[in-house]
């Protein structure tokens, strides 16, 4: 829900911000000439007191989130969100607690008991602390079952102080993370509870830089938090590399589908791409409808070899014709082993499992062969 506003209104906003007491440290004239100011859509800039987010893009492409503009009002929001003062949170409580009242203390004790059974040592956490955590998460419209699993399996979240926890929550909410995304981020990003937010901010910046929409960027980082470790430089260069293989619009769709594309070894990505293009004789379009890059090279090779050896997949000729009807890429790569064997290849699952083992052996033998060949040629 971001919009880019015009040059004129941009100037007006920055002027207003300058006029206000906080003062905004923007890149000044440069930022204005570039005219890429994004802001929260619902928010109106006149009502400056309401929570807003500003992103000013400088010509160098650096995006800064002006936190201090926001932080003045954080206390207000913090109270409203956590304690349920705001209208939104009140409604939330009604749906959660009105129909079916949840005893948070009891739930907290239950969670602690479950968590302690996972560890050999006792956890020194009080039920009331946990209750506060659950309540604040509930207020952010997180799913109760998600919260339960999070607190049970993740010791860091369970034992974190309420202060750190609240800070992390505020940070996430302020950057637009919602519901499951919050739970996912809390689970995977341990540094959040230690108050380190730099990585995530940088990552979001880079994702916006590669022209992902705000919602998409958040979705992406929440679905695969490993993305946050990629540096800005690596990310832009990877996107440029991918643009060599796919259309620009397709690249973004692919990244959203398989975030691994951003940090996997590029030679491996290219190998998968070339394998499918040359060995399966398809073009980029069918690749878009599969999660090809989520699978390992071995998986891709095994599935294809299995079908080809059984005579169920044929490399199309130059005109794209085959004598048999090939299964779709989705059927080949994205199905589970049993579905693939029984529905696609029409053979027992055990046959495919045996082939998998056999093919691994064959590959090993081939590698040994090529290694020994190489060493022989080196000797010469």
């Amino acid at each position, binding site marked *: 829900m971001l919009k880019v506003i015009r040059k004129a209104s941009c100037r007006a906003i920055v002027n207003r911000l300058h006029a206000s007491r906080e003062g905004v440290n923007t890149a000044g004239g440069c930022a204005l000439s570039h005219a890429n100011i994004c802001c929260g859509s619902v928010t109106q800039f006149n009502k400056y007191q309401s929570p807003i987010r500003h992103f000013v893009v400088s010509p160098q492409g650096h995006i800064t989130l002006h936190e201090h503009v926001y932080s003045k009002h954080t206390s207000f929001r913090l109270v409203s969100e956590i304690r349920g003062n705001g209208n939104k949170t009140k409604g939330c409580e009604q749906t959660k607690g009105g129909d079916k009242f949840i005893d948070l203390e009891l739930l907290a004790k239950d969670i602690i008991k479950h968590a302690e059974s996972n560890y050999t040592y006792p956890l020194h956490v009080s039920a009331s602390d946990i209750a506060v955590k659950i309540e604040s998460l509930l207020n952010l419209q997180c799913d109760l079952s998600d919260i339960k699993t999070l607190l049970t399996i993740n010791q860091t979240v369970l034992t974190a102080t309420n202060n750190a926890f609240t800070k992390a929550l505020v940070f996430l909410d302020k950057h637009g993370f919602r519901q499951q995304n919050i739970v996912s981020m809390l689970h995977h990003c341990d540094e959040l509870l230690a108050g380190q937010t730099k990585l995530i901010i940088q990552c979001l910046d880079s994702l916006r830089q590669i022209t992902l929409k705000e919602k998409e960027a958040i979705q992406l980082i929440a679905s695969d938090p490993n993305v946050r470790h990629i540096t800005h430089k690596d990310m832009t260069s990877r996107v440029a590399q991918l643009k060599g293989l796919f259309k620009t619009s397709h690249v973004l769709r692919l990244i959203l589908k398989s975030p691994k594309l951003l940090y996997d070894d590029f030679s491996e990505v290219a190998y998968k791409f070339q394998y499918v293009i040359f060995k399966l004789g398809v073009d980029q379009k069918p690749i878009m409808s599969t999660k090809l890059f989520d699978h390992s090279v071995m998986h891709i090779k095994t599935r294809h070899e*299995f079908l080809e*050896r059984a*005579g169920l997949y044929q490399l199309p000729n130059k005109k794209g014709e085959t004598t048999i009807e090939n299964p779709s890429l989705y059927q080949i790569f994205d199905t589970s082993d049993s579905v693939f064997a029984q529905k696609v290849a029409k*053979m027992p699952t055990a046959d495919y499992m045996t082939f998998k*083992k*056999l093919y691994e052996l064959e590959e090993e033998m081939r590698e040994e062969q090529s290694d020994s060949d190489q060493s022989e040629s080196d000797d010469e």
Partner: protein
Amino acid sequence: MFIRLLRPRSVLLIPKRGRVKTKWATHKKQKLPSLLALEHFDRFYAPMYDKLWPSIRLALLSQQKYGALINNYSNNVDSAVLDLIDTGADNFVQIAQSHKLSEASDIVDKIGLKKDVSIPEILESLQKEKEKPPLVQHDDGHHVETELDSNLYEYMPVETVYTEDELLELKETEENIFRPQDFSVDLIEDTSLSLPIQLKVHTFSRGNVTMFQPPKGDSHRLLDYYLLDAASTLPVLALGLQPRDKVLDLCAAPGGKALTILQTGLTDKLTCNDNSHSRLGRLKTVLNWYIPAADKITILKKDGTKLGHIMTEMFDKVLVDVPCLTDRHMLQTDDNNIFSSGRKRERLSLGDTQKQLLCSAILACKPGGSVVYSTCTLSPNQNDGVIQSTLEWLWENTKIDVSVCNLKPLADACSKTFRFYEHCRYGQLVIPHIRANFGPLYFAKLMRIN
């Protein structure tokens, strides 16, 4: 000016079209013999094996499975057996022994009448389909004039003229289609069939893809086991060897089956024959590595097709492992591949050679003795087809009476290890399967009555 025209350069400008051989198309890849083999199998086996074909094809193109034939002459037999059992490889002959051979299936008297073998109609249609439109079609009139003494009104123009290649192609189709005929043969229960106790062939269970370690030598430099396709011991089991039998292995090289015969410990005299010097060399090497004193073994280098006329009625048991398409091997190597274009005629004459070898084997066999015919191909014409045509030939041209032995009990006993094809007429066919990747191997047993 005039002189200039006569310079050799002007001579070079004569249009050259049609004088030069067209360029080789570099974008068109030369088809490798192994690929040709695969195409051939797809064309002829797919309609035959129908739903089984994908799994057979998969297995043929994947790593084959081995069996370890224990060398009883080695000093380390016991330790080798224990080692193999430790790694999970069990003796399949022992497993088969626990399955009682006497529990035979219902006795079938006449093959042609009871066993319902329906050849897929697709094969018949395949031939029609392959009769391509003629390349050269003679118009009436043009060529007729040359034949002066023929009556114009009586002359029937040639409808189709085939090139030599096309004739070969037609012959290939002919050669590869097996037409079962209601030719009645006695099918007898083999009472002599018993599994030799001394023979130990260890294989890994179904789905286990572990590979065997290379065999080790003992104090006399004899290796402790021989790795071979476990299915190729089945023809030897089918021989039903009795103590003091005289045995002939008509096409012995490279020696896997000859070695299996020796490992049963039942033979008095084994005669090995092969017509190729280099292949006999391989046989000798194998025997040297596994047998301490090769005095029991007579090695001959004769033409197998004529051996039967020389050594008539001399042997109790004859094993004919004929040269065939060797499906698995042809898919893996391109060297010396029988599907290479230069060996087309040889390939097409295989059927005749096989028939002659089998006839020769029957002639070399004593009355009351038996002949086991085996191939390692799935081609029905080289399996049941050869048996059928040989039986027909014997029936028409000689007074030799031959009946076919029922090998179903043996197949049933080994069904835990191998996968058998159910629709064979005269013999048993092991078909490759990814979990039990042995074969293909066809074997049939004929008993000479008089």
